[in-house]
């Protein structure tokens, strides 16, 4: 086996192996646990960087293991998978640091970090999955590995949320299973390929292909929180902040959106999507989710729930870009995968900092918080403005491409959706920014970090600053090849060969 075939496996194992070892550690082995975690992250960063260089030089990375007849387990690194792998890795790095600070002195840390690493492995494996069966395997693994994190606190409320979460995700997983099995029965399970592999079947098995598409999109739509399948996401916010940040703002919801990208472009392909008239319903669903999520976010009085509904809305931008089926719109959707991740994770870190430092959970308690925690509030402002789409922050780039993509394929009404959503975003984010900076400060009874040098624990502050800076930088540097935008264009060049 050459290094190009082992590299994808190594990337998955670099978080899986530390995770499994961490399970066996005792609570008090803090130092070893942190070392293992950081070593895994560092190794993964190096491996991913190597693969990024390789892929941009045109190398292909493919690892395969026999599994089912006609459907081996395949891990492969292509441009699209790397976008997601890189995002997960960078955010895993930030979130690990954050979680070490956040969970200091709380019980059951070995279990927490073990499952946390398993989740990252599942996400990365899912990103690298080279065919539908492999994708399915990691999709189910992700469900199993996130459940203990949702119920981590073990309170009745979190157990209820955990049940809801399982009901949705296991149901979704079963639909994906049926969709994958149906497509396998019709066409086997070849590797994902740009343009899809179902062209020969469109005439003959059209209805079956439509059913398979519906099964897959509904199943993936659970994790991507498309309406009416989004109900688990706000409930799952009872989990500890690092979990909400990485998993429910980024990893879990993005796996759904990423799966939809894979299914649309690498299984069905744009031509089959047109021929089967599948894109339009998906587009409508995405547009409806964008507006619905924003409207619901407006009604929430709790910060994390407002952010959760904002996620419902924002993740559907990705689906929207994909469903428009035009190159520019796809660039917008893909780049939003990375941009939304950076911005939303920032916002969730901030929410976690507010809750951890001052016990602030509700929006009306945020009055004047900017004077007590200026750095966190600055980061929050950057994230919020980015979500609204203020240049030069990352969110602006995505919306620009989505808008021009919609015009390119003649779906002008999508502009109205984007505009409406931007207004709604402003309506639910700007009051928070205003409160934070300009309202009269409240009296924080639970200020458990008063009189220290920094406004909160430095391990909680560092990731916030890092991701906020990154959100600005990827916007400013969007023109360069190494930015998410540059990479998204590379993907689209390969997906839409002209």
């Amino acid at each position, binding site marked *: 086996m050459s290094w190009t075939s082992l590299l994808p496996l190594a990337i998955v194992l670099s978080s899986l192996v530390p995770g499994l070892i961490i399970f066996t550690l005792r609570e008090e082995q803090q130092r070893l646990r942190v070392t293992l975690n950081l070593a895994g992250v560092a190794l993964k960063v190096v491996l991913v960087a190597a693969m990024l260089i390789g892929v941009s030089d045109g190398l292909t990375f493919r690892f395969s293991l026999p599994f*089912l*007849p006609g459907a081996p*387990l395949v891990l492969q690194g292509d441009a699209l998978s790397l976008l997601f792998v890189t995002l997960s890795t960078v955010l895993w790095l930030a979130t690990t640091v954050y979680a070490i600070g956040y969970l200091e002195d709380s019980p059951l840390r070995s279990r927490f970090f073990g499952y946390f690493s398993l989740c990252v492995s599942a996400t990365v494996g899912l990103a690298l999955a080279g065919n539908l069966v492999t994708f399915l395997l990691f999709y189910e693994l992700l469900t199993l590995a996130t459940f203990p994190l949702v119920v981590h*606190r073990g309170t009745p409320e979190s157990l209820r949320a*955990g*049940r809801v979460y399982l009901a949705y995700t296991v149901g979704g*997983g*079963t639909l994906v299973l049926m969709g994958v099995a149906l497509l396998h029965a019709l066409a086997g399970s070849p590797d994902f390929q740009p343009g899809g592999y179902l062209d020969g079947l469109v005439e003959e098995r059209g209805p079956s292909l439509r059913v398979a598409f519906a099964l897959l999109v509904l199943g993936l739509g659970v994790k991507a929180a498309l309406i009416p399948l989004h109900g688990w996401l706000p409930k799952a916010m009872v989990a500890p902040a690092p979990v909400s940040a990485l998993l429910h703002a980024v990893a879990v919801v993005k796996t759904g959106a990423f799966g939809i990208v894979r299914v649309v472009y690498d299984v069905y392909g744009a031509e089959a999507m047109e021929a089967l008239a599948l894109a339009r319903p998906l587009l409508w669903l995405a547009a409806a989710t964008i507006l619905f999520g924003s409207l619901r976010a407006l009604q929430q009085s709790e910060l994390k729930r407002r952010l959760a509904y904002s996620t419902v809305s924002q993740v559907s931008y990705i689906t929207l870009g994909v469903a428009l089926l035009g190159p520019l719109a796809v660039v917008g959707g893909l780049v939003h995968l990375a941009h939304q991740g950076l911005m939303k994770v920032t916002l969730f870190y901030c929410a976690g900092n507010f809750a951890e430092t001052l016990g602030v959970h509700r929006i009306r308690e945020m009055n004047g918080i900017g004077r007590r925690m200026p750095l966190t509030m600055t980061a929050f402002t950057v994230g919020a403005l980015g979500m609204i789409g203020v240049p030069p922050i990352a969110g602006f780039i995505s919306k620009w491409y989505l808008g021009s993509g919609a015009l390119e394929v003649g779906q002008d009404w999508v502009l109205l959706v984007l505009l409406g959503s931007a207004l709604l975003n402003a309506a639910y984010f700007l009051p928070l920014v205003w409160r934070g900076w300009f309202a009269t400060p409240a009296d924080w009874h639970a200020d458990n970090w008063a009189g220290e040098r920094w406004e909160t624990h430095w391990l909680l502050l560092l990731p916030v600053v890092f991701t906020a800076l990154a959100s600005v930088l990827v916007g400013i540097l969007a023109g360069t090849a190494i930015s998410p935008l540059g990479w998204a264009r590379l993907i689209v060049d390969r997906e839409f060969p002209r």
Partner: protein
Amino acid sequence: MNAALLSLFAPLAGGLLLVLWRPARAGLALGVALVSLLAAAAALHQVADGTRQWLEVGGWAPPLAIRLQLTPLSALLLLFTAGLHLLVAVYAARRPHAIGGADFWPLACLLHAALAALWLSADLFNLYVTLELLGLAAVALVALAGEKAQRPALDYLLLSLAGSLAYLLGVAILYGRYGVLDLFLLGEQATADAPTRLALLLMTLGLMLKGALWPLHLWLPAAHSSAPAAVSALLSALVVKGPLYILWLLWTRLAPTELAVQAGPLLAGAGALALLAGGWAALRTPLLKSLVAYSTVAQLGYALLALGLAMHWQEPRLEAALWLFVVAHGLAKVSMFLAAGELQHTLGGKRVVTLKGASQTLPVTMFTFVTAGVSLIGLPPSGGFLAKWLLLQPLLERPQHWGWALAVVLGTLMSAAYVFRVVAHGFDRARPQPPQVRPDRFGQWLTLLPALLVFGLALIGERMLPWLEGVSR
């Protein structure tokens, strides 16, 4: 064939010796299971390429002779039986609370021998005798649990006898009609006339009663949940598979194709309903072991569904799915019952709610339960998933068969619901139940072994699935 006979006679001799010679029970039983396992492996090696071997007992030629046959499938089942017996024996030697008394050892050996003889038999009357031996050994094992198990054991015995007598009446009718008992000679002669139909009906009902196939499963939950943990594991993983094997022989080897095609949807329908009814009951019951027992009823539904549809469409892939279900369920269920026993013993309560906080107090056992449960749900990459995948492929190829696939979906959701019902309690930190006795580390890891083996099946899936399709024909 000699290896297969060794695999059969080792536990038989061991069982008889144990009755006579009391000391050193565990050691002898372990040795016997090990010998049987090695012999079964050798037998499988001999016939793995798809050959069959025959033995005519006493040298008589058919139709008078009693024939034993060794097929790749029966060799696989021999290996499976011996492997699970060895594992349970090691566990039982280590954890005496799980067996209910020293009489466990000879009875377990006899059970093993009866099963081995069943897999090797090829004539209807021989199958009857092995079936009866199996039933008697199983009942005696259930009764080991003491007073609380006597009522379920008696019910089990009487219903099991009724099932056998229905089967025997069918055998008598077939013999009266054709004058032979050998399965394959009967298969050549059988026509779809009234006596044959009646005989097949009686035998099928009898076997369904003995195999606890829905709707004749009512005795199973009480018997399996009141037995000692090691016995429950053997009963759920192995004993109910015996009648299923005979049912499969009857309908694929003996019955005229025309009848099999007609009867298929009835069996498949019973299987689909078993999935739903068993799953629902598992979801409602307050007791941990009866949850696991109802899950057996549900999981047998998958096997029955596969059998019925295999008969209806004459589809070898579904027969392979049937055997994969049997193996995957057996392994997962051994883990699950032993884990349930371990949880019950350590936490000192029978109800599902006593598992509160078990993910902290007994993490390994809880992990075992989940791992086995994941295979029962059929999530990748477990053996349960392979079986379900194999079952789904022929169902999904034609839209007119999608109704059956819907039953599989519902079954999956139900099993996920009852498995996670247990898991959710394990994560409850509100008022955790403290362990009554110190958990046993070796026992905990041992129960995990079969659950890991189910996942190991995924590694050989690519070669095993076509092999199973080949040998089920």
